[in-house]
């Protein structure tokens, strides 16, 4: 392993600009003559828009334009789209209502976009917004997930019972049979709490229009600028792709919420042409709470069947998923194909059946948030397994190991073909790290101090990469999920790599450069990674689903193969040898069995000066591109163990220890991978203990700022013990599985299993706030006293 190649903890190349305040985020961009947009948002969860009177506002100082949904329609600007078609059990397509960028006739959630005001300054735009008179015909709101289906109030006429789809997966008959034959059945009712992603950088957009070229530029906080351009061009109709450039510069975190194509960037880029000025919008945090796509929000009943030996024989689930007021870009895929196919977990379960009903409500749209469907599935499986072990009087670690899949490949009853893994190895390592043998003593020590200590397990599996394209296409995806790469070698041997994988914290500028540096044998400083600009990078699918390593880097790997192959041809001319006799290693082309070599930089120069070969026989230049479409999903898996202590007097839960052992396949940069695990765990602990978006019965978001929505802070968390096991992924050339979401997927059930262990098996809902834990602890103490 070289100091900068694959496996090295290379310090990040991108850090210098961030630690010196020179990062360039969308809100840092200011275009000459820029105007500011302010969105007037609905204060009501559900209302008809009877009249929007903008006359007085339009005459106010600095106002350049006020636009409503009618203006978009007049310009033939289409609505926002949902890119994944789900079919009902009966084969009919899902029922979706339109999703206009600016409301037409009706508003459907608090924060919905009534109209936009463009003015010289933001203050002037806000002043004008206050002068707009809107006549709302306030309607009752549907808010509750569980009772939305069939409610009297209808969110979209297209879905008269508020149901977007009734979908299912798995083998119903076999599952029912297995439950009938079961020795024991474990049952749980689960609410997977609604979350707000809250990347620290709020969304922003700057739209620009060049009249001379008839071309638009959109600077935006996007995880996938090419997909944004595709949707804005082909579906929304802003401009043809060759006349629309989308730039996603430094992006301050996404966690899914910046995958989607929102109303605000659509309107900003369109309005730039209307007012003939660049138009900027930057979300404030309250707007982010109201209008960023939320995550999770499932209500589930789940059952697990076991036989007399404690072998799991079947699992069945009914889930209602709240998709909010409109279908966001990938919303329909989250509670379906990103959820149910993971319900087999790490376990050999012969029969699995899942039913999912998706509902409309008068709340913000719900879409993918770190993990997207897989945390929900893992929570169901790992809570069921933990409770089953307790009910059967079995050690939860041993019960898991008994039921782990041990032979690979393994076909689950729910689509997935797990390619490789060693689940017991991760469990054993995690048990060692946490010192499972000493837990009894630690529990007694806590009890002596009046505290309750608990330990909780989570054996998670996830499916990453989200490909091959043909497979996701057959499941309803509107796009292919490959990735592209282009490797440009400059005449002096420095390299630019253009990738469709956007980096917004993941460190691609370092890890991707490690791959290139290692393979070409050139210093890492000589490699630049370029992403996030549709004018530079041809086409790419972006960053989500832990796919950048497995898919994005594999595309680079493929392009590097081509670069090396071409380099061999050039070297053969220069070294006057047969191409078949040229080897490439450690940055040198070498004629086999001789000491004649050509270093990579010299080869590049020879490729461009082209003096040593005939341009008809070999094209000059050294630049290669590749598209990589994986052959399967990847399956990162691992075991997280949480140990915590509860103060029954206050209900405060302190996480004391955390062991995480993950199998991500081959790791490019362990420092960055561990960082991803840490961040994921923090978000999962946030879900389990702190975070929960709450709407009241009128559809007002009562957690609309950090004053009420509890973000994890440094003193809410411990340091984490992170370990790894490795089974290389067989479906991509690098053996990478992906690591971005694992922590967020694994951690919520580990926390809740630990709390319920400490409390003596009381169920508790997420977030397990001090108040909820206190109440549960009081009940436990009373019950234990009675026993």
């Amino acid at each position, binding site marked *: 392993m070289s100091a900068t190649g694959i496996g090295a903890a290379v310090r990040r190349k991108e850090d210098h600009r961030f630690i010196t*305040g020179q990062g360039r985020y969308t809100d840092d961009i200011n275009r000459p003559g820029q105007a500011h947009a302010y969105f007037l948002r609905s204060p009501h969860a559900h209302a008809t828009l009877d009249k929007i009177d903008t006359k007085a506002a339009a005459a106010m100082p600095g106002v350049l334009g006020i636009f409503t949904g009618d203006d978009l329609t007049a310009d033939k600007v289409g609505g926002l789209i949902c890119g994944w078609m789900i079919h009902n059990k009966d084969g009919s397509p899902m029922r979706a209502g339109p999703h206009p960028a600016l409301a037409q006739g009706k508003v459907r959630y608090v924060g919905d976009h009534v109209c936009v005001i463009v003015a010289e300054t933001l203050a002037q735009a806000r002043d004008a917004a206050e002068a707009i008179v809107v006549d709302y015909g306030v309607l009752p709101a549907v808010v509750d997930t569980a009772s939305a289906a069939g409610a009297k109030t209808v969110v979209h006429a297209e879905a008269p019972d508020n149901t977007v789809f009734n979908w299912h997966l798995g083998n119903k008959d076999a599952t029912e049979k297995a439950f009938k034959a079961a020795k024991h059945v474990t049952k749980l009712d689960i609410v997977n709490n609604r979350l707000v992603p809250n990347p620290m950088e709020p969304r922003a957009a700057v739209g620009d229009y060049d009249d001379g070229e008839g071309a638009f530029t959109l600077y935006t906080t996007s995880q996938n600028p090419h997909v944004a351009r595709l949707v804005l061009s082909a579906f929304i109709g802003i401009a043809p792709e060759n006349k629309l450039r989308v730039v996603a510069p430094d992006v301050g975190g996404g966690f899914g919420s910046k995958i989607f194509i929102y109303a605000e960037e659509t309107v900003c880029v369109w309005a730039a042409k209307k007012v003939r000025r660049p138009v900027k919008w930057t979300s404030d945090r309250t707007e982010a709470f109201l209008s960023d796509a939320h995550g999770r929000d499932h209500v589930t009943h789940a059952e697990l069947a076991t036989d007399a030996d404690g072998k799991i024989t079947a699992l069945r689930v009914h889930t209602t998923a709240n998709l909010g007021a409109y279908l966001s870009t990938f919303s329909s895929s989250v509670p379906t194909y990103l959820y149910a196919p993971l319900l087999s977990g790490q376990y050999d379960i012969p029969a699995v059946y899942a039913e999912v009903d998706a509902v409309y409500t008068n709340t913000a749209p719900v879409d993918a948030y770190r993990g997207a469907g897989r945390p929900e599935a893992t929570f169901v499986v790992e809570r069921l397994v933990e409770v089953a072990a307790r009910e059967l009087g079995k050690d939860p670690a041993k019960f898991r190991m008994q039921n782990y899949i041990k032979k690979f490949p393994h076909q689950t009853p729910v689509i997935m073909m797990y390619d490789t893994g060693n689940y017991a190895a991760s469990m054993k390592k995690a048990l060692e790290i946490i010192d499972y043998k000493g837990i009894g003593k630690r529990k007694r020590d806590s009890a002596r101090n009046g505290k309750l200590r608990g330990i909780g397990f989570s054996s998670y599996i996830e499916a990453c990469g989200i490909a091959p394209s043909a497979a996701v296409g057959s499941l309803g995806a509107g796009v292919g999920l490959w990735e592209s790469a282009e490797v440009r070698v400059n005449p002096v041997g420095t390299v630019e790599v253009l990738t469709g994988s956007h980096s917004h914290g993941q460190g691609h500028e370092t890890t991707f450069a490690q791959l290139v540096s290692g393979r070409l044998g050139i210093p890492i400083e000589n490699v630049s990674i370029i992403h996030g600009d549709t004018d530079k990078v041809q086409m790419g699918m972006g960053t989500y689903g832990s796919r950048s390593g497995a898919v994005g880097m594999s595309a680079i790997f493929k392009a590097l193969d081509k670069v090396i192959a071409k380099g061999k041809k050039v070297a053969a001319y220069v070294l006057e040898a047969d191409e078949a006799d040229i080897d490439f290693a450690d940055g040198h082309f070498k004629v086999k069995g001789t000491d004649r070599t050509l270093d990579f930089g010299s080869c590049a120069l020879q490729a461009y000066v082209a003096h040593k070969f005939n341009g008809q026989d070999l094209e000059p230049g050294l630049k290669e591109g590749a598209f990589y479409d994986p052959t399967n999903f990847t399956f990162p898996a691992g075991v997280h163990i949480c140990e915590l202590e509860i103060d029954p007097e206050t209900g405060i839960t302190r996480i004391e220890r955390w062991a995480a052992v993950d199998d991500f396949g081959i790791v490019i940069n362990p420092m960055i991978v561990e960082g991803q695990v840490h961040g994921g765990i923090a978000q999962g602990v946030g879900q389990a203990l702190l975070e929960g978006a709450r709407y009241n019965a009128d559809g007002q978001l009562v957690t609309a700022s950090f004053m009420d929505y509890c973000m994890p802070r440094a003193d809410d968390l411990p340091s984490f013990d992170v370990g790894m096991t490795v089974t290389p992924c067989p479906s991509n050339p690098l053996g990478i599985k992906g690591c971005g979401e694992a922590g967020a997927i694994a951690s919520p059930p580990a926390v809740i299993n630990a709390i319920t262990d400490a409390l003596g098996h009381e169920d508790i809902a997420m977030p397990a706030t001090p108040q909820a834990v206190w109440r549960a602890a009081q009940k436990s103490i009373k019950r234990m006293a009675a026993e």
Partner: protein
Amino acid sequence: MTTVSLTVNGKAVSANLDPRTLLVQFLRENLRLTGTHVGCDTSQCGACIVHIDGKAVKACTTLAVSLDGASVTTIEGLAANGTLHPMQEAFREHHGLQCGFCTPGMIMSAVDIVNRRGSVLDEKTIREDLDGNICRCTGYHNIVKAVAAGAQAMGASSAPARQAAE
């Protein structure tokens, strides 16, 4: 309009401002020092932390016109003559950042902690004193490590901690 004269990163600055102008707006929009960020509306996230007369404050909750005669240091003013501040170096070395958005505020807060508490910091103190800074990426694990290491490096460097921050 109100006139204000202050020092920003060692340079004298005068401006005639609408009194509504927040320090963070003045830095970002007037001076184009965009390293200071805005991450919330409720004075909680700490992405906007700068030093005023050597003390960490929230630039989103301070009127620029109230700083007549004050000395402001932003993330852009922390490195001296092209040499990174030990705390900046520690964040890089210990992978204390991912997306980088909270980072300037984190680093300015971290330097302030050392100024107040000295260069030997335990994990508990660091975690408690980062109460006013929210990070969504790192889970704080590596930030805590970076702050401890940066504090140590500040203690070891010849310049007194407070001076290093100015």
